[in-house]
Every structure is written in structure tokens, then in C-alpha cells.
């Protein structure tokens, strides 16, 4: 089940809305926005629901602090209110809320709206991962155990296609076509890139191996 954070100063609202949400999500409730912000420093959620009207810090204020929190994963944030006036809804969208939930909304619609945005969000940070290595496809970045590893674009593309084909082998011709968009790259060029890649990921438990006449693949080190 997906983890959901729900912040609302009213205990009654917390109870009634979570009752609806709990049929589909793992809900963590917070009556105090500040204690939620403290948790956010070390925990990530799949979606966050914020009540708009809260005495200590209103939903918009919490929203601003969330997006400035380095540990925030970019998950969808919903604003929730019984004040369903145009101005309140508009302000929510202007702030960047992914949706506005009125308290008059039917439970089924509430769940459908939250679910559909979570699904989008998950497609939203496209990444490939294997044994501690991670390729962030939106930002064209590579990490090993969360440490940024600098690659050239060619190296990034080689790794990308090897991870996509893993655990299968990819033929040299097909790799060359995908990475260089030509058929004339020298073997020695390919082997140099592969050698460089292997040295950049020395501690990774996989290495790139070349099988003569068959192709190239990732193999777990013994």
C-alpha cells in the first residue's frame, strides 16, 4: 500500500477522512503541521494531503515549506478544505497543488483522484536501478549508492541500454546503432568506453563483459 500523509488540525476531520483513505492507503495523520514537517526531513511519502485552514501554519504555508525541504521527493500535494469557494480553489492551484479536494466530495471520488495522481507520479520519476546503481532518466544523472557519478553522454547511453536489456545480452551491432546511431563505430572505441565505465563503478557488484561474437552484457562479479 502507498504511504499517505494527512495533515489537519481538526481531530474529527482526521478521523473521518482517514477512515475513507485507509481502505486503499497506508495513512499517517498529523494534527500539528510542524511535527509533520519534522517527519518529512527523514521520511518520504507517495502523496501528501493538507488542510487549508489551520491555526498554527495554514496549508499554503506548509506547502511552501514542503517544497523547500531537501528530502521532499516531489510527490503530489493535495489541498483539502470545506471552503470550496472559487478563490480558495484558485489559490490552491496557483500554489501548485496537484488537486483540490472539497469536503463535500464523495469518498469514491476522493480515492480515485488521489490514486490517479500517485500513478502519474510514479511514472513521473523515470529511473533504472540495479544493485545500488541508479540512472535518473529525466535529469540524465547517474548515482552509485546515492553518490553522483559523472559520465559522458555516450557512457550514460551505453549503461542505459545495458540496464534495459539486463539480464539478457545485447549484440554489439544493436548497441552501436542505439548509442551512436550509425554502424561504423570502431570496436576499439566501444571497448575503451566499456573499460572507462567499469573503472568508474569499481565497487558495483556488476561489471560489463564482452563476449566475443555474442555481444555485451552485465554480469554479477564473483
Amino acid at each position, binding site marked *: 500500500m502507498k504511504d499517505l500523509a494527512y495533515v489537519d488540525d481538526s481531530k474529527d476531520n482526521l478521523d473521518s477522512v482517514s477512515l475513507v483513505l485507509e481502505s486503499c492507503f497506508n495513512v499517517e495523520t498529523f494534527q500539528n503541521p510542524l511535527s509533520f514537517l519534522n517527519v518529512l526531513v527523514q521520511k518520504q511519502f507517495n502523496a501528501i494531503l493538507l488542510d487549508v485552514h489551520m491555526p498554527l501554519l495554514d496549508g499554503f504555508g506548509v506547502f511552501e515549506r514542503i517544497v523547500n525541504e531537501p528530502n521532499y521527493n516531489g510527490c*503530489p500535494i493535495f489541498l483539502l478544505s470545506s471552503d470550496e469557494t*472559487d478563490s480558495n*480553489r*484558485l489559490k490552491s*492551484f*496557483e500554489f*501548485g*497543488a*496537484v*488537486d483540490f479536494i472539497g469536503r463535500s466530495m*464523495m469518498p*469514491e*471520488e476522493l480515492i*480515485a*483522484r488521489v490514486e*490517479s*495522481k500517485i*500513478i*502519474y*507520479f510514479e*511514472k*513521473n*520519476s*523515470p529511473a533504472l536501478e540495479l544493485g545500488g546503481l541508479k540512472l535518473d*532518466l*529525466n*535529469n*540524465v*544523472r547517474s548515482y552509485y549508492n546515492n553518490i*553522483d557519478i559523472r*559520465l*559522458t*553522454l555516450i557512457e*550514460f*547511453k551505453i549503461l*542505459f541500454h545495458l540496464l534495459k536489456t539486463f539480464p539478457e545480452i545485447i549484440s554489439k551491432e544493436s548497441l552501436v546503432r*542505439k548509442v551512436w*546511431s550509425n554502424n561504423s563505430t570502431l570496436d576499439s572505441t566501444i571497448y575503451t568506453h566499456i573499460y572507462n565505465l567499469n573503472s568508474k563503478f569499481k565497487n558495483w557488484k556488476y561489471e560489463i563483459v564482452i563476449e566475443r561474437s555474442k555481444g555485451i552484457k552485465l554480469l554479477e562479479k564473483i
Partner: protein
Amino acid sequence: MKLKLIYIDDSSSNIESLKLILEDEFNVVGAGDQSAFPSLLKDHSPHAILLDFHMPVMNGFEVYEKIVIDKNYNGCPVLFISGDIQDDNRLKAIKLGGMDFFSRSLPPQEVKFRLLSRIRLHLQSAAVLTFDNLCLDKNTFAVTIGTDLIDLTLIELRVLSFILRSQPGPISKGQLVKAIWGESSVQNLGKLSVHVSHMNTKLAAWKHEIRMRDDLVLVSKI
């Protein structure tokens, strides 16, 4: 840079009024009936499609079914607009996948914000980003203008990907620099201008150009 919206409505006055509401952020391509779809999808790569739900020949869901099987459909969000909304239709629209159902009684600003919010989610997750004749394919990390392949470095690709995913903008320089190098410093701001000027040279055949003005990064038509 403006986003592209295909809007099908049998009332041309509805199309004209939406064009006015959205003119700052969108190029609205309007058509009076769904028969125009195959050619519209072929000629335009829209960032969203808006359908009048009640149309004479087919209703919105039936048109939707036709769109998603069209070979030129790019996966962008499809949304419905209607004067009267029944709860079950709205629910069905949302369940069909991250879409929304707008009531004509919504304030115009809210229609705009909701559209932008859906598109923002979509641009993050889309495998292929198309803006007029330029196309960035996250499956191959290839950038093409028309049929020509453009050779970009990894940093340039990162900058372009971030800029395209943030349209219609505006983007602050600081935000972009932070996304590329992790921190915003004077030195990195300088590097950004150099990269952008190289990119504009390489992307000369694109109908747009990346401009830096004051603290902002904008994409504007040449």
C-alpha cells in the same frame, strides 16, 4: 513557450472564448467535430486534449476510445468539459487515467490552472517531449529537429530536458542551475550562459530559441 492544446467542441463560440482565456500559455487548435482527429494528431503533437463531453455523433468517452488507439496519439492527458456533469461520468473520467472533468461553470482561471497542473505531471513522465519541430526522446536520449539528429553533450541534454519539462515556464536561472549542478553559484550561472549559447547554435533549426533575461530563462519563438 506556449503549450499546444487540441480542443474539440461543436460550438465555435466555446472554442473562441477558451482561446482567449488560454492565449498566454497555449496555442489552441480547435475543431468542431471528432472526425478531424486522425489528421490533428498527425500534424500536431499536443500537450493536452480537451473534449466537449456532449457532442452530437459521439460522446466524449467514445471519442476518447478512438484517440487512445490512434497510432499518432502521444499519450498526453485527455480532459473533458461539459455544462452538466453527472457524478458517475466525472468519476469514470478520473478513473480512465489521471484526467479530469471540467464544468463550464468553473472560473476560467481555474480551467487554466487545472490544465497546467495535469500537463506538468505529464511532462515529467512523458517518454517523448515534443515542442513544434524539436523532439527529445527519453528512450534513446536522442534530440531531433525534423529528421535531423542533433548532437548534444550530457550537460546540454540535461539543460534542455529541464527546460522542456518546465514549460510553459518561466524558469528562474537559479532553479535551473540548481537542477543541473546541485548549487547555484555565480560561476555556475556563467557556465549556464555558455551552454545555452552553444545550444542555440546547435538548435538553430528549431522554431524557438532559449533566451536569458534578468533572472529568467525563457523559450521564445524566433
